[in-house]
């Protein structure tokens, strides 16, 4: 059985890709199949751990300390702080190695966009040392594209200088005619929250003759050195000494770090006196990205980085394969079938990981009669009984809408459970937004749930294989 897969992951979002990485690094033979590209590229590219508690008005300052306030069945409660922190540590190592470093959004400024990833010492960090870190679990506050404070734990290095704990004045600089970024609105809302902020709009005519102002088009454009030089000059002209500059997250698809570094250096060269030197690494970043509406460049970059690492580990990620059937006897799944262009394709593996997401990702479907179904294996779900119980009258109700908490209940190994509390199958695992007892969007825990449960489920599979 040398050719048999140890783990077949269904779903190519952050959960599925990170679980595949975790299992493959442990030496398992892994493959990913998915209907579509996952929802990573819809999101802001940050790693949100827990921004708000159910019913909570104020942002969670430290997610690690807030875990006991979550309901007992919440996935984080199954894991505990240490397991979550370990998964995040693994994640940081992965993206740093892929050239897309992620840093703590809150607290100090140890890592900046301009410091190369190999300087970061992440690979050699002793995990135990990290867990003694007094800042463990401490959320930062980054600027949303409407000027609200987003509670974020880890941010792409490109976003970190937007941390609102920093009291340097802000210049929010937009690109003329871009429909998805409104610098004056962002600045006004920051002012209303007591920040020093102003806005500017940079002319795009010099950069491109095309009228297309979509994030993807602009990002591709800004991968070019000539466009990078022009934008650098415009930012330097617009920024006052001592100001940090927030730009829409369109600063390149493949090369945004270089552009950020160019702008940082140009600003530092112009104002050598005001350039701050808060840490051992020299100039502090003065420019940062603010995420935009989908499609999100930070999300696309994350997706690309994860897939590149999986590629190096020999893990194939097959998109365009929707699961259309499976075969199981007793408590064992033998194979699944996917739709392909010509005929159904059969996939056999020792273990299967369900990472198809929730209602947004397509892993869960609610129909008109009020039935909520898991779409691949029709697993038993924890869900409201009738459609009348799905929603609340106010869209922005802090408690969220009950239907979006629908999901699969799992045990501490992340095996889906039936109504009696026993595993449905011995070789089927579940992770990410398909899990019950959490509303990751309302909690701002989307990426935290994805990374920590994906990692935990993969580790459970690895342990099972070693037995």
């Amino acid at each position: 059985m040398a050719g048999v897969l140890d783990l077949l992951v269904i779903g190519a979002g952050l959960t599925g890709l990170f679980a595949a990485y975790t299992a493959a690094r442990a030496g398992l033979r892994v493959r990913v199949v998915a209907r579509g590209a996952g929802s990573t590229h819809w999101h802001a590219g940050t790693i949100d751990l827990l921004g708000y508690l159910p019913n909570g008005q104020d942002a969670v300052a430290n997610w690690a300390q807030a875990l006991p306030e979550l309901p007992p069945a919440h996935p984080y409660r199954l894991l505990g702080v240490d397991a979550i922190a370990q998964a995040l540590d693994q994640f940081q190592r992965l993206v740093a190695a892929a050239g897309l470093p992620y840093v703590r959004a809150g607290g100090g400024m140890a890592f900046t966009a301009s410091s190369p990833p190999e300087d970061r010492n992440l690979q050699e960090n002793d995990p135990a040392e990290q867990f003694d870190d007094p800042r463990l679990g401490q959320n930062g506050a980054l600027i949303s594209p409407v000027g609200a404070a987003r509670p974020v734990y880890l941010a792409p290095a490109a976003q970190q200088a937007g941390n609102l704990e920093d009291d340097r004045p802000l210049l929010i600089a937009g690109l003329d005619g871009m429909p998805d970024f409104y610098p004056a609105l962002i600045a006004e809302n920051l002012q209303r929250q007591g920040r020093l902020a102003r806005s500017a709009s940079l002319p795009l005519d010099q950069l491109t003759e095309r009228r297309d102002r979509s994030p993807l088009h602009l990002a591709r454009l800004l991968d070019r050195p000539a466009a990078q030089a022009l934008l650098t000059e415009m930012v330097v002209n617009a920024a006052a000494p001592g100001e940090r500059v927030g730009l829409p997250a369109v600063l390149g698809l493949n090369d945004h770090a270089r552009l950020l570094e160019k702008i940082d250096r140009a600003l530092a060269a112009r104002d050598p006196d005001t350039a701050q030197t808060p840490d051992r690494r020299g100039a502090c970043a003065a420019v940062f990205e603010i995420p935009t509406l989908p499609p999100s460049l930070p999300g696309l970059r994350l997706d690309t980085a994860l897939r590149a690492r999986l590629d190096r580990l020999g893990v194939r990620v097959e998109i365009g394969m929707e699961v259309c059937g499976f075969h199981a006897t007793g408590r064992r799944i033998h194979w699944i079938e996917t739709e392909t262009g010509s005929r159904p394709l059969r996939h056999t593996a020792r273990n299967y990981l369900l990472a198809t997401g929730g209602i947004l990702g397509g892993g869960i479907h609610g129909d008109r009669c009020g039935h909520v179904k898991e779409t691949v294996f029709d697993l038993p779900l924890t869900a409201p009984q009738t459609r009348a119980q799905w929603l609340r009258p106010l869209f922005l109700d802090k408690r969220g809408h009950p239907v979006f908490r629908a999901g699969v209940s799992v045990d501490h190994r992340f095996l889906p459970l039936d109504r009696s509390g026993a595993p449905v199958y011995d070789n089927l695992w579940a992770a990410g937004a398909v899990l019950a007892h959490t509303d990751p969007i309302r909690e701002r825990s989307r990426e935290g749930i994805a990374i920590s449960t994906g990692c935990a489920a993969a580790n459970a599979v690895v342990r099972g294989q070693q037995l």
Partner: protein
Amino acid sequence: MKRMQTEILVIGGGATGTGVAWDAALRGFRTVLVEKRDLTHGTTGRYHGLLHSGARYVLKDAASAVECISENRILRRTHTHCIEDTSGFFVVAPEDEDDYPDRFAAACRRLDVPCTEIPPGAALRREPLLNPRISRVFELPDAAADSFLATHATAQGARQAGATLLPYHELTRLHLSGGDGNRAVSAATVLDTVSGRELRIDADLVINAAGAWSGWVAALAGVEVKMILGKGVMLATNARLTNTVINRCKMPGDGDILVPIHTVSVIGTTDVQVADPENLSIEQWEVDLMLTEGDKLVPGLSRSRILRAWAGVRPLYQETQPAGEPAPAAGDPRSNGLPAQDSPQYSRDATRALALLNHRQRDGLRGLITITGGKWTTFRLMAESAVDAACGQLGVSRPCRTAHTPVPGVEQGHYWLGHRLNEVEEENLQSELICECELVTRSMLEGAAQRNPTVTLDDLRRDVRLGMGPCQGGFCTYRAVGILHSLRAGKALPAAAEWNVAHMQSPAHHHRDDTGPAPADDSRRRSAAVDPRASVSQPNLLLRDFLQERWKGVAPILWGQQLRQERLDELIYLSILNADHLPVDDEESPLSSFFRSDSSPSTSNL
């Protein structure tokens, strides 16, 4: 308190009130119209968009049928661009009674409603999704009408004739003068709901065109007008299912009209008598009934993606009220969800003909006329009757001119579905799009915001169809808030160029050299523009209100793909924008509580 003086004061900014202002101004009366919210906020903006041929009423309500066919012919001339010439089919489904079609055809002939029977096969070739089991098909001159655009066009016609229209001015008091036997309405106090200031308007005559709110207005003058309020629920699908208006050829009932309007099809309606036009709940049985009945017209309609549900309320009036139907038997789905204290009544049997109440004859009260009942299709005729009566009270004789005076924009010809896409492609405007679903460009949005007060984004939705497509505001809400914020923070507007209301529908308007006819005189130009710095609400409030307004209409139909779409909207507004933690303090717009209270009670017991 500020004061103004006018000859005719119109209460209500729906199709009827706007039509009255247009008619009165064309006859040379100094005219002021007050509307408590935005133009078309009431029933006019909440109907399915059917321009009746009258055929629906030939056997049940001949007076209404005759009014409809006559007005149908007139509106095609005066409001051409607000009408899509879809034609209409009356189809006999297997469930329908046998003798109705023949009686129907005979009645159409008798009442001069043009009716042609066509073979079912020919009808199916034109509308392939129609139920193949239909046995007979009649074609009639029904059509689809854009009631938002039509009202705006009428309003512009009224303004050009000198009328003053005051949206967001709520009537709070009618002033009576004279003693017994000589009582008269002489003035009104209105509240500017945006600024909070009061205004007294002295008027020779007040015309009550407040639709479902008419009884309330009449009560301010101490007279009783007992309205029958018939709530109708409608659903919009995410695509057009037919290009022809489809009616069931049977006695009018629930869910038997399917209207293609712009990019969607609307199935309607229910008819349930309600007490309060402000709080219209949408019950699950009503949604289910629309889908079940819709399947009889287009099999599979119930499985198509439903974008939205909404309810309007018909302002029906009969001087002698029909007896209510007996209470539904146990097990009737209608008995669910109705307030227990009310005896359920259905208003299907009340006449759709217009009702003119001349309170001088009826109640011995001069200076007040109520015009109500009727249909959207007959709004012009209602206005004509009301202003005729006004002439009588004022002792003057001035003929009505509306039947022969086109409103601005008719030169465009009938609306057609590809209109916006054609302009976007011809002028290469893809990158200007703010709402990809409905092809709304930035300049359309800015133009509308500069011509109409924007208390909520919902006002712009009615103007340009913002947020009416599949994502229900997912992307455009944020963009519109950003654009309006720039307008609000921007410089004062230059004197507005002449603005044809049809430009609100035209993506290419600002990209063409010829911007329409030569400007009229200065005072009229000024009145055509509003200063967005003063009239646009605080941006965070715009955002919060519109998200809730959209939610109100999607909550009753969220399942399947539309539920998934809503989750994407949550991702955008909660996770990316963190819009539920924006500084809004305790601010409220005049509509904040309306958007909250209008949501479905089936979801409110959590």
